[in-house]
């Protein structure tokens, strides 16, 4: 599959990862962008993003996935973090009900700062820990439906649904139309230009493989 070595792309899509600490956001990110998983990953400090270029329909899209921690309280970067995001993955841990319970709060935070048209997917991660599950799929699904969110259960560990989840968010259930406005905004807000990013990306890929 294409891990983003393509230099040329039509759009940069910004997607943010949110959710409680320890639910596996960073591993979802690394799984999607680098096909990596770290068992002993530490708590994320600061803000970073990874990119991956994918083909959606006829477009080459550069997915820019942002990951952070410590947004439980408002910080200067909160707004910047959400700004221009076309999609968000609200992640919880299916084995930790508390992380699911806080989803509503995260949702509010998201809508407070993000584009109202943002595509949001509720992601129940760590599906591999089925035996420890405390959040029933149905319950989460119902909640997502009620809130108008997409829903998916993933496992960054065994890669289940990771690709699909990101793809769906990047595509958007409600169609690209909805996200077009955001797309342009993202493109504009990225003054770097495609070349340098692509180079960085490529370099990254080389080193990891």
């Amino acid at each position, binding site marked *: 599959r294409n891990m983003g070595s393509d230099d040329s792309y039509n759009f940069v899509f910004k997607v943010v990862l949110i959710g409680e600490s320890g639910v596996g956001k960073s591993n979802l990110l*690394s799984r999607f962008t680098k096909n990596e998983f770290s068992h002993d990953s530490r708590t994320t400090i600061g803000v970073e993003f990874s990119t991956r270029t994918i083909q959606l329909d006829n477009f080459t899209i550069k997915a820019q996935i942002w990951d952070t921690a410590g947004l439980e309280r408002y910080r200067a970067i909160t707004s*910047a973090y959400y700004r221009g995001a076309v999609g968000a993955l609200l992640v919880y841990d299916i084995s930790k009900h508390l992380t699911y319970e806080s989803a509503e709060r995260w949702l509010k935070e998201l809508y407070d700062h993000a584009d109202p048209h943002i595509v949001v997917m509720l992601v129940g991660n760590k599906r591999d820990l089925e035996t420890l599950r405390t959040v029933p799929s149905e319950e989460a699904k119902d909640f997502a439906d009620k809130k108008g969110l997409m829903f998916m259960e993933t496992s960054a560990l065994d890669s289940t649904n990771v690709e699909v989840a990101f793809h769906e968010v990047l595509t958007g259930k409600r169609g690209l139309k909805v996200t077009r406005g955001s797309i342009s905004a993202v493109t504009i807000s990225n003054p770097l230009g495609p070349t340098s990013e692509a180079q960085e990306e490529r*370099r*990254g890929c080389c080193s990891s493989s």
Partner: protein
Amino acid sequence: MSLADQSQQWFPTSVQVTVHQARNLRVKGKNGTNDAYAIIQVAKDKFSTSVAEKCVAPVWKEEASFDLPLFHPGNTERCTLYVIVMHRAQVGLDKFLGQAVVNLLDLHDNKSRKKTDWFKLVDKTGKEDKVRGEVMLDIQFMRNNMSASMFDLSMQDKPRSRISKLKDKVRGKKKDGFSDSVSAIVPSVSQVLTDSEGEADAQSLNQSPGVKKKSKLKSLFAPKSNLQRNISQSMSTLGTLPEKNSSLSGSRSSGLNIDSPEVKKKFKFLGHKRTGSSDSKVSQGPFSLLGRSKQSNSDLNNLCINGSHVYAEEAEPKSGSTLSLNSSGQGSVEDVRKHTSDASADSLRSAPVPVYRRESTDRAILEQQRHQEEEERRQAEERRMAEEKRLEEEERYRAEAKRLQEEEERRYQEEQGRKRRLIEDEARRKKQKEEEEERRKQEEERRIENQRLEEERSKAEEQKRQEEASMSDRLSSLFGMIRKKEEKKEEVQQHSKEELPTPAPRSDSRDSDQPISHHPTNPFEDIPLSSDLRVSSNESPADHQKSSHNPQPPSAMVFLNRTAKVSAVKPRPHPVKPLTPVESQHATSTPGKIKVANSGESGPYTQLTQEELITLVVKQQTDLSRKDAKIVELEEYIDNLVLRVIEEKPSILQAINHAKPV
């Protein structure tokens, strides 16, 4: 009339009295001394010197100034100075030692007098009844402003003579005259013109032929003065005139109507009030100060004052006070200064005490429970110690002859119970007498103990005590949290107080027991209360000797020392098992064990006392919170940094850890 003339023939407007000292006083105080002070009084104005304590020849060197608004022979009251020497009684009324009565008029007329002289003290009625000693006074007459008084006089006439332009002229002249002020001693006052001067002048003019030296003034002003006098008299009865004249100086009358006693009295009262009720000069100090500061345009003030003086009391309170306070102002200010300096000194002295007390009482409240606990523990410890000692010595010093002695003593002690302990106390106290500090004392005790016991053991005991202290700490950890801040402060004090070669843990715990004061634990204080009496009643000399050698556990001793009540409870004919087994187990475990355990546990903090540990914790907490704050700052800084990166070059934030193993 030239200024020179005026200054030559001047009339005092005030008198400054300095009470230097007294001698040959009658003795009313204890030990053949007096706590003497002097009251300086002219008319209703009184000043008091400070109290010269425990002396036969008090030295005060304090001065007071009095207005002499009615300085003429007809006004003996105003012209008589009383210096009343009193003894401050501890209980009851202060005692009269004698008084000097000085006729200021005579004194003033006596040109040959010495400024400073001894005045004989007489009895209350002014008669010489017996030898009461003398007081050395320095009496100086002062004139605030001659030209001002002239101005007053002229202004006084002005409404009637309608020479308003002259007024301005005179004013100008008067301004020149300021420099003419005779009283160099009261410079700040000199600007202000009191009508008393004028009054004096006028009176002396109007009055008796016996009054001398008014020649020039008289020729100039006598007619007017007479007129004025009449007018003022009528004015005194007519309430309406003053209002008309209020802005003018027609009100002069107050001092002028002296011929009739009644009127005089009346005016005097008025004048008195108006002049700033100089009776209570102390309280007026501030006002007189104010008055001074306001005297810059004294001309106008004086005018107004004069105008409103008699009739419009309320109308111009400021100028009123300015008026005659100025001359008395000095005295009052000084008086106030004296008083306040004393007071401030007192307050300074006492200031730290309340602060400390507040802290400590807070802390005391917090620690009451703990204190009780500790007392109980101490009691138990006492018993434990006794028992423990026996055991230890049996184990360790069986071979030693001393041990036998001690055993005997102990047995004896057990038999004697309280008595023995009391003797021990006393013996200990004897040693303690040589020591200045509580901790030192304890250390000494320990040293005495150590003569017989191994150093190890003593160490172990210290550690044990430390442990106990920390245990009690733990028990009172709730309080501890609250206390910390206070303790922190207190620790500073304690540390400064208790500079010991080797910090004794137990004394620490005791310190925390009694945060309010260290005195209760002070052995010296206890000696007369508890030990001596009991010892003398119960003990034989032999007991003394024995007990002085008795290796009584220091904690028990200390405990005994601390409160008589405890010592009454504590002694038992036979060592009794401590009431709280757990505690006793903890405490009575052999020193060796404790030592091992402690050395096992010991980290860098083992040697620290409770107070030091608390200090440490507090310090570290402070450090922590400081670091937290720092972290927040850094977070914010990083946030802003990241924000800028996001906005300007987000590619920097692209994940770096590409090489992470999968």
